[in-house]
């Protein structure tokens, strides 16, 4: 792999990614008043994150059982309003225990 190709590829990836992120931030500088659009945007975070998490979370570790139990722990901790770190570590700890036990 030549250095020229590596630099060109990295520049292409970085510029494309930044362009996608920058465009809406540059365009929508005023609060949007339209009720439907505001409602749409209200739901976007929950929908995006749900779609990205399920069902992908079940294959996110070496074992499906570990991932499933880790997911259950995460949902339980989140249900009781535990913080991001607690939920993330709880899920990973559960997945680790299951895998370490060789299940």
């Amino acid at each position, binding site marked *: 792999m030549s250095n020229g190709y590596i630099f060109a590829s990295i520049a292409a990836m970085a510029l494309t990614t930044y362009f*996608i992120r*920058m465009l*809406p931030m540059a365009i929508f500088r005023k609060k949007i008043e339209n009720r439907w659009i505001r409602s749409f945007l209200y*739901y976007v975070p929950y929908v995006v994150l749900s779609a990205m998490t399920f069902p992908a979370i079940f294959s996110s570790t*070496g074992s499906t059982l570990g991932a499933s139990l880790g997911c259950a722990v995460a949902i339980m901790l989140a249900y009781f309003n535990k913080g991001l770190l607690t939920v993330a570590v709880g899920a990973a700890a559960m997945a680790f225990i299951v895998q370490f036990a060789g299940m």
Partner: protein
Amino acid sequence: MKLEEIKEGIKDGLPIALGYFSVSVAFGVSSVGAKVPWWGATLISLTNLTSAGQKAGVDVMAVGGSILLIVLTTLIINMRYFLMGVSMSQKVEERMPVWQRLLVAFGITDEIYAVSMGKKHDLTACYMAALIIPPIFGWTGGTLLGSVATNFMPAVLADAMGIALYGMFIAVIIPPSKESKKVLSAVVMAILLSVMFTYAPYIKNLETGWAVIIITIVVSSVAATLFPVKEGADIE
């Protein structure tokens, strides 16, 4: 006040940085496996700050694909950031100057976006800077470590780390779903469609990046039409 914002940002940014660190070690290891040198992998992480898009880009580089293909792949996988950027543009303080908005834009990742949207208040530049900078270090540092010292982490530990970032997403989704039937309905619709896009014949072949975009547009449109938020209510 500003010091408070910075403290709050760092407090929220550190867990993301830790999660990124472990995930990016794996990215570093796999990049070297794909014949990208350690400095290339590190530079990719520093300039892209995204997981799936980088992985796909490196996969194309590994087979010597064209720059156009790299651009298209990155575009499809990262297109969701456009939608996130629109809602982020509404969540930052209205008086935030353009140059600060353009800097904040660099930090729109799934996790930073998730944390930002979970805030009850509008986002200030100080808070966003403090939220974004630790993850940049975590992501880039992990990649550097992973690419220079491959295989130093026990596989079982690295494996278990894979679920950590999903755990953060769950922490954002669940509390509002408990409070609001409208949010819960949107979440359930999104999950059902996502399962369909993963397993149903034919459509399962669609690039994950496209599936997420389609699901987001369809479900958010349906939810906005069936359950519009109150007039004048703040977008949270």
